[in-house]
């Protein structure tokens, strides 16, 4: 490895969780406003990919006057290339449950759910056991808090928070219009805090060590560490906790196979970065920093020179076409037409300029689709087509 290219590895998330009872007890004795301020000053942003400031989310829900509020842990991990949440729920489930209970204390909620994707059904027995043990402790502490496991049934779109509510309410997982936002009108119309598994695990770190330990990691606008799910053409696929704000070039030096042609950051709904852009791309949330900063749910897929970018795009579009909920036309028809379109170009039935038409279609989808799914198809489509145009045609 070239000196100076060291990525900063961090070990918080999977650190021993045996002190969860202490953390829970300690947190429940602090004023809720103090806990919220701790979270806000840590500048933790949601780790599911969208990056909403977690402390503000909790504050918004805490300020709601409703007597019934809900907490939901979003474990519908479905973005291609992401597999970190399962690891958290397998290795340190007590951290997540503790964080949910602290959130319950902060916002005034007594009922929480974990929405676990159907593909992870095999986790159910272990998780239910952890929940039973956790609830027994809550009872000992005289803290009225219940957690239930809710199983998804194989729909990527249910990772979208309002689609997830619909699904839990026994309906098709079709996203709602926003606003109203979940913190005022969520599950069953009640104020709801919905956080990604990893976000909750980070709040545990913050309540344990204080905001500063977390804030000191990362860079401006992108504080703390993040789990990365690394897959594709790499000698060491797996899950790694790294400091945010790293350069993609450093990442590729560490994880690439020496022949990395491009990296897809953020899964099928993310961006493809070609080799020539590695140096100017950092991984973190968009801020006022110079250069390109890509937010991510943590999916990092590496492709070496043996891979056809046409096949990659074809695979992503097929994924979107199947997972589009079908509710709004730009996404339902757009995904079909994009897939048909690149196939027609590849077969030579349409010329290369047709790709520009398709690019305009993704732009329309970006503006008019109802939710993040349809809006984000443009990300991978345009970044792949613009950087590897010749591979789309020949």
């Amino acid at each position, binding site marked *: 490895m070239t000196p100076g290219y060291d990525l900063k590895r961090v070990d918080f998330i999977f650190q021993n969780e045996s002190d969860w009872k202490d953390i829970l007890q300690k947190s429940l004795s602090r004023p809720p406003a103090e806990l919220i301020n701790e979270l806000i000053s840590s500048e933790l942003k949601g780790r599911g990919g969208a990056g909403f400031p977690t402390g503000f989310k909790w504050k918004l829900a805490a300020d709601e006057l409703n007597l019934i509020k809900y907490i939901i842990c979003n474990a519908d991990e479905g973005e291609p*290339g992401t597999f970190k949440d399962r690891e958290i729920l397998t290795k340190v489930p007590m951290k997540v449950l503790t964080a949910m209970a602290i959130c319950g204390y902060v916002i005034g909620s007594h009922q929480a759910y974990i929405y676990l994707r159907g593909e992870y059904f095999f986790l159910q027995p272990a998780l239910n056991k952890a929940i039973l043990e956790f609830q027994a402790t809550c009872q000992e502490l005289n803290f009225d808090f219940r957690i239930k496991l809710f*199983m998804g049934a194989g729909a990527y779109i249910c990772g979208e928070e309002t689609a997830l509510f619909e*699904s839990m309410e*026994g309906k098709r997982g079709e996203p709602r219009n926003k606003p109203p936002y979940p913190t005022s009108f969520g599950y069953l119309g009640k104020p709801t805090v919905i956080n990604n598994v990893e976000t909750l695990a980070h709040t545990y770190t913050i309540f344990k060590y204080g905001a500063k330990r977390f804030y000191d990691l990362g860079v401006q606008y992108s504080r703390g560490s993040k789990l990365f799910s690394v897959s*594709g053409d790499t000698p060491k*696929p797996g899950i790694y906790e790294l400091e945010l704000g790293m350069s993609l070039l450093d990442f590729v030096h560490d994880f690439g196979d020496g022949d990395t042609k491009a990296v897809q950051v953020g899964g099928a709904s993310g961006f493809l970065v070609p080799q020539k852009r590695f140096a100017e791309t950092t991984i973190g949330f968009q801020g006022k920093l110079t250069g390109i900063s890509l937010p991510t749910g943590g999916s990092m897929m590496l492709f070496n020179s043996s891979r056809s970018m046409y096949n990659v795009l074809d695979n992503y579009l097929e994924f979107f076409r199947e997972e589009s909920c079908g509710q709004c036309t730009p996404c339902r028809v757009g995904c079909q037409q994009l897939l048909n379109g690149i196939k027609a170009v590849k077969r030579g039935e349409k010329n290369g300029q047709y790709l520009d038409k398709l690019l305009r279609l993704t732009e329309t989808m970006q503006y008019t689709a109802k939710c993040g799914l349809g809006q984000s198809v443009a990300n991978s489509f345009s970044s792949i087509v613009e950087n590897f145009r010749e591979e789309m045609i020949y």
Partner: protein
Amino acid sequence: MVAVLELIDNLTDQYGRDRSSLLPILQGVVQQENYLSEYAMIEIARALNLPAAEVYGTATFYSFLEYKKMGKYLIRICKTITCSMKGKNQVLMTIEDMLKIKVGETTPDGMFSLLQTNCLGFCHMAPAMLINFDVYTDLTPEKVREILSGYLNRKGGVNDTRI
């Protein structure tokens, strides 16, 4: 038929009769029956006091709620990018060859169905597949032959993994 009715009864007792119990009830039926028959959906609608079309509309939205008769062992092989890059097609061909069925089909004895599915979340151990709810990773044609032989040998049903 009677068995399904009894099952729906038990499930509504367990989960309640609110609309928010619909998914757990549908899942409960699929786990026992391997799929949702039209009859089962109509009876669930009756039990929850919902229009049957609503139950059908909800059930058919979710890829893990089968509404066509499926084999006892449902194989779902991941077709998303990393699994495809790491040799999914060879594994799939091996399965098709061993079971003599194509994707979307069920063996004549009703034992195996074969489907492709979207990202299972095992990209670091690709290719991956589910057989009912058991995960198999780092598949190769040799490995999948061994796994399927295991199922074929016990297909008498004593070790059914779908409980």
